[in-house]
């Protein structure tokens, strides 16, 4: 009941912010449209829709980190969290309260991206649904990043870290805009040490029916998600018992 009440409040706060909706849903769709339009004017198959859409969906999830991080950071900066910390709520109430409303939002965002792609030529079949499911752990990873950023930084820094740094990292180091194998070298090495390229590759493997390639990439994502969530929970709990004046 308490967790549900807190989740409901967080969901309302996020969906009632028009900027959240504009960036979270609108921006990935604009990117999808632009790159599809670009593809139709070039001879080389650079942005095939079935390869592009998992990447754009992963890129879109970086905005989920921004939403969650901003909400937590704002709650901290406005003393709202101080009020809540005097309430008889436990650490799991807070963490689940911030995390749970973001999962359906992330799934909805991914689904809308895939539906939009269907209008641009993506053939809808079982593997598309599988790709959406495969991207759910990716959503958890981005929610964890938001929770961590919001627990560590103020809203301005969260805006910079999640709004600028994370969106760029998830764009350039995910292989969405260009083939990382073509770039190769240290760039590819770094990209595959981070979870973003693995997230996109897992989504692509699912959509193309290459089932055996899904899990090797997904483990990277799950590993990062678990590690970041554990760190985020640790930092958040530390904030709860903060002794700063």
């Amino acid at each position, binding site marked *: 009941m308490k967790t549900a009440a807190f989740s409901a409040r967080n969901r309302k706060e996020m969906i009632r912010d028009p900027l959240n909706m504009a960036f979270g849903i609108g921006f990935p769709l604009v990117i999808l449209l632009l790159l599809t339009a670009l593809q139709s004017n070039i001879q080389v198959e650079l942005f095939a829709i079935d390869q592009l859409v998992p990447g754009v969906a992963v890129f879109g999830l970086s905005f989920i980190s921004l939403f969650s991080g901003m909400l937590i950071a704002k709650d901290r900066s406005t003393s709202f969290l101080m009020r809540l*910390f005097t309430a008889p709520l436990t650490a799991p109430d807070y963490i689940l309260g911030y995390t749970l409303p973001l999962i359906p939002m992330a799934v909805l965002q991914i689904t809308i991206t895939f539906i939009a792609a269907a209008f641009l030529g993506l053939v809808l079949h079982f593997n598309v649904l599988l790709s959406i499911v495969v991207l759910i752990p990716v959503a958890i990873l981005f929610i964890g990043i938001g929770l961590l950023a919001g627990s560590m930084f103020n809203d301005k820094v969260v805006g910079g870290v999640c709004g600028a740094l994370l969106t760029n990292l998830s764009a350039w180091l995910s292989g969405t805009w260009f083939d990382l194998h073509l770039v190769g070298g240290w760039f590819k090495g770094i990209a595959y040490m981070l979870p973003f390229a693995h997230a996109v590759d897992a989504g692509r493997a699912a959509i193309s029916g290459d089932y055996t390639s899904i899990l090797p990439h997904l483990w990277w994502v799950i590993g990062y998600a678990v590690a970041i969530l554990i760190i985020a929970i640790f930092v958040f709990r530390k904030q709860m018992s903060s002794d700063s004046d």
Partner: protein
Amino acid sequence: MLAIETKNLSKRYKTKTAVDSLNLSIKQGELFTLLGVNGAGKTTTIKMLTCLSKPTSGDAILLGDSIISNPFAVKEKINISPQETAVARNLSVKENLEFTAKIYGFDRKETALKVQEMLDTFSLAEVSPNKAKTLSGGMQRRLSIAMALISDPQILFLDEPTLGLDVIARRQLWSAIEKLKGNITIILTTHYMEEAEALSDRIGVMSKGKLRAVGTTAELTAKTSTGSLEDAFVSLATLEEATG
């Protein structure tokens, strides 16, 4: 039974002592004001009593429960309206109240009753569907206090409740606080003398982390041989500063 009893409650940071061996007893139903300039230790005291910050040493017993050994039980009996207005900005006035009631464990029926009671008590019914961020500063502060009261706390902490409000909003808030007197124990912090004088049963003067004196306005002025609370406060704060 005492509502609050502190025993050598202290909070020390690396370079300063924010609260120094605070010994204080507050009766149930009393409106007790902690008066002091910025940095006197009022907010740190409130943070310790509301279990937001652990004391470096000492303890406080709130209605029989220790803030150190049983903070969860303490949290069920208290509520706070923080210094900065703490409302959910994109939620309506009614939703803010409902949300607070639910996190304190009220069921749907109880929540509806309590929400209506708070809307009436704090004259918020007219703005009930409005988003909190659209309210004036005074209205937001009233909502903040209503959110603190909706859980039926036995002890209510009001940290600088009228800071930054205009005269009219301040007087309206005083009127709301006066209605609560006697029903619950209220700990108010302020640095406005007239506020302390108008609302308090007793006043504790804090300066540099120490409780310099406790009493009614008449007792404090008599103790310092002054004619007003402001003079008494200045006398207590500066005299003790001079002597350390």
